[in-house]
């Protein structure tokens, strides 16, 4: 029985009741949603309150503080919160979020904006009220007091992580290369780090390779080290100091106080670490520098500000050549220092030679912990006199900071044997400019307009007007007219080819007239009764051709009926019938008719023919 109950078809009443249930649920949901919206609007228009809070009121210089500004009674920020001046903190704006709470039927909404505060110095500070403006009114939060302690790493013996910066020379000379080193050391895993480099104002800065990763033991503790190096060149003796540097990092600290082992910088597995992450803002103190000016004593005349240690090498492409030939003098200056500043080598002129200098090339590479440069000067030398000519020593004066004195790097003189040119050709020194790599862009000496056009083209009209416009219009309109004419003719031709009725109608009069003309030839033969037959066939044929009927075998009465059907007046139709009967009578019954009577029949037939042709 139970099975039969379950398999029984549903009663209509059950279906209807479930339908009502579904409808009721939907209505309730809709009402709830509307109520939620109304309540939300009401809540938004309700109490408007601004509050501010921080995640911690006591922190070190290495910590960051989250400031949260909360506005209740709103689902979105009416305006951007106005923070008080915070000169002792670096402020980074975070995002904003809104939330709606329903507790015991009471709905409340709020929106929060977050800020990240990074302390710049230790001390006690008050974060003043945060203000919000809404519809011309200003709302503000309560002030918050926070206490910033010195960095933990400076007080701890074995800090979790810390950064250092130093230079290899504290009292460099102006333009002397000094090596700046920044290190980030940590004994826990770091998952994120962002370095804010110090201000290098007053220095020319070049990178010394990529960052290095290695490990180091400090106070019996293994630290992972990330090291960055830069080559600095003080631009003046007033360059001062290298500013403070900061690094913000996220460290993974194991729960229960025991720290996890050292992992690679940014290379560790965040999800593999069973610990919590903390964000640290680490800093290193500024480095004061005592930059010394270059001494005046012993400064060579040709000194161009090179500071470092350099060597010079010179060579020519060939030692024997003829007047007018060219050879390349290659002078290579290498060394560690501000070689980039070396612009030109002296002497710029060599007696007996015409010189065409090329653009010098400069390459930098890192050797050890220092930047090492190679600058190559190439000059095309063209001897303009024969004999033994000498390329004088190529000298580069520089200041050696190690020795504390000026030095001169130089080469030995190069002797070239120049023979007289046997061909006695005039010396075209200008051709030397075509040496490889010595091409120069064309110099524009002046600008002017191009000359007038003097050809006959100026006399030709280039815009349509008058007759030419009509000609253009005609050439545009004539083709479609021709086409339409041809199309009409083609259509007519097609109809003529396919519709016999049209052909018969078109040819009816002509055919009938021809028959009457043939009949006329028999008019003078009084016994020839076929004359009347011809007239009758002509008239009947006309009616048949016009009405597309075979009327030759029709009686005059039938012809009359056809004419009446075609809408001809009864009197005229009757006249036609009577004339046709008369012709049949003359043809088959009557005796000879005189020529005058036969003539009269012909005239009447012609008249009737014209009448029928016009009417049909």
């Amino acid at each position, binding site marked *: 029985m139970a099975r039969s109950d379950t398999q029984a078809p549903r009663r209509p009443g059950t279906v209807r009741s479930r339908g009502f249930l579904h409808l009721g649920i939907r209505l309730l949901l809709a009402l709830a949603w509307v109520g939620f919206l109304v309540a939300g609007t009401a809540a938004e228009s309700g109490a408007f309150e601004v509050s501010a809070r921080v995640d911690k009121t006591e922190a070190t210089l290495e910590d960051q503080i989250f400031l949260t500004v909360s506005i209740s009674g709103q689902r979105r920020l009416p305006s951007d919160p106005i923070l008080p001046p915070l000169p002792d903190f670096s402020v980074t704006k975070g995002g904003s979020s809104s939330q709606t709470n329903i507790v015991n039927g009471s709905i409340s909404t709020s929106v929060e904006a977050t800020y990240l505060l990074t302390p710049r110095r230790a001390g006690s500070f008050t974060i003043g009220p945060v203000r919000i403006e809404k519809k011309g009114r200003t709302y503000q939060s309560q002030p918050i007091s926070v206490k910033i302690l010195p960095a933990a790493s400076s007080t701890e013996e074995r800090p979790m992580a810390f950064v250092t910066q130093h230079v290899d020379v504290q009292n460099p000379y102006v333009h002397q290369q000094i090596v700046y080193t920044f290190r980030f050391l940590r004994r826990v895993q770091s998952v994120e780090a962002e370095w804010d480099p110090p201000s290098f104002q007053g220095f020319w800065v070049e990178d010394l390779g990529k960052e290095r990763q290695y490990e180091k033991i400090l106070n019996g503790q293994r630290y992972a080290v990330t090291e960055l190096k830069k080559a600095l060149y003080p631009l003046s003796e007033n360059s001062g100091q290298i500013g403070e540097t900061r690094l913000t990092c996220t460290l993974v600290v194991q729960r229960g106080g025991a720290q996890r082992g050292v992992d690679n910088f940014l290379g560790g597995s965040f999800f593999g670490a069973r610990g919590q992450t903390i964000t640290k803002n680490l800093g290193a103190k500024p480095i004061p520098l005592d930059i010394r000016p270059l001494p005046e004593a012993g400064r060579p005349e040709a000194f161009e500000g090179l500071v470092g240690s350099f060597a010079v090498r010179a060579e020519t492409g060939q030692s024997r050549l003829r007047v007018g030939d060219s050879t390349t003098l290659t002078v290579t200056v290498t060394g560690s220092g501000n070689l980039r500043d070396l612009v030109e080598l002296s002497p710029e002129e060599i007696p007996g030679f015409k010189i065409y200098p090329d653009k010098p090339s400069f390459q930098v590479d890192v050797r050890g912990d220092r930047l090492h440069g190679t600058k190559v000067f190439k000059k095309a030398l063209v001897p303009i006199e024969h004999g033994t000519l000498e390329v004088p020593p190529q000298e580069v004066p520089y200041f050696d900071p190690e020795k504390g004195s000026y030095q001169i790097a130089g080469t030995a003189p190069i002797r070239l044997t120049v023979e007289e040119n046997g061909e006695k050709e005039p010396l075209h020194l200008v051709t030397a400019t075509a040496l490889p790599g010595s091409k120069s862009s064309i110099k524009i000496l002046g*600008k*002017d*307009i*191009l*000359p*007038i*056009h*003097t*050809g*006959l*083209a*100026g*006399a*030709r*009209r*280039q*815009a*349509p*007007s*008058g*007759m*030419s416009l009509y*000609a*253009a219009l005609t*050439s*545009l309109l*004539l*083709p*479609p007219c*021709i*086409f339409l*004419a*041809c*199309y009409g*003719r*083609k259509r007519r*031709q097609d109809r*003529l*080819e396919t519709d016999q009725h049209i*052909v018969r109608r078109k*040819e009816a009069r002509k055919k009938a007239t021809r028959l009457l003309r043939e009949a006329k030839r028999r008019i003078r033969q009084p016994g020839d009764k076929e004359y009347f037959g011809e007239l009758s066939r002509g008239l009947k044929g006309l009616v048949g051709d016009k009405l597309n009927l075979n009327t030759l075998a029709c009686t005059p009465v039938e012809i009359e009926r056809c004419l009446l059907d075609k809408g001809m007046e009864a009197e005229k139709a009757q006249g036609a019938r009577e004339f046709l009967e008369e012709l049949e009578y003359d043809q088959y019954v009557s005796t000879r008719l005189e020529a005058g009577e036969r003539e009269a029949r012909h005239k009447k037939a012609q008249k009737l023919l014209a009448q029928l042709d016009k009417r049909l």
Partner: protein
Amino acid sequence: MNEPVVNKTTTRLSLAWALLFLILWIPSPALPTPTEARARTPLEEAEPSRGTTAHAPEDVHSLLFLANQAYMEDRYEEAAGLYEMIVESGHLNGHVFFNLGNTHIRIGELGRAILNYKKASLLLPRDGDLKANLQYARSLAKDRIEEASPSLWNTLAFWYFGMNLWELLIAFAVLNLLFWSSALFNLYRNSEWAKWTLWLSLLVSLVLGASAGMKARESFRNAGGVLLEDEAPVRAGFSRNDTTLFVLHEGAEFTILDEEQGWWKIVLADGKKGWVAAPSGGRLALTRDHPIAR
């Protein structure tokens, strides 16, 4: 009975084709044949035709010859007068505008030079000399107005920017003729390639027809303008009492948006707008009543 009808139709069709070819062969009366052009010697050109008015078309040759001669003998004022006489007679030719532009450059009238070069460019859109001279003239202008770079439209619609109105009209007429010829051919012969030709020629002739219409508007109702005076204040309204927004110098190019009581509402290529006194500038449109007649 049908046979004679067909014979007659064939004769008429042949006649229609003959007429069509005749139309193709007839040259436009506006364009002199090369033989005619070559037949006129400079000496003939220099000698004005007797019994004709000064503006008669026959005089264009001699006026042009005299103007060119005056230019080459550094009599620029005289040359400018002769060139302008040719233009005022309704003879619109890019070479004449080009020469007039050159003459104004020599006289030192930069605005008029740019205006004439721009008019010439409507009729000689592919002329390299013209582009060079216009660029040179623009480089002499005091006002640096940032112009929009050529758009993709310039590349895609190359025929529009590379042909003048007359060339577009001729191309349109030829394509129009091709289309109707194809239609006529299709009427009597059923051919696949003729159908393709029909639709292709229809498409191209429609494009060329639309281009010719646009070019005619550009040539005769062009809203472009050039400042002819040394400098002119551009005001906020069409009155001398209105605030001066900025000052334009000779040769500055603009587009005329509106005209009111002898003032033009203009916009520069960089979007700046204002009102300038109409007599200060020249219109770019090719019209018989030359606005810059001296």
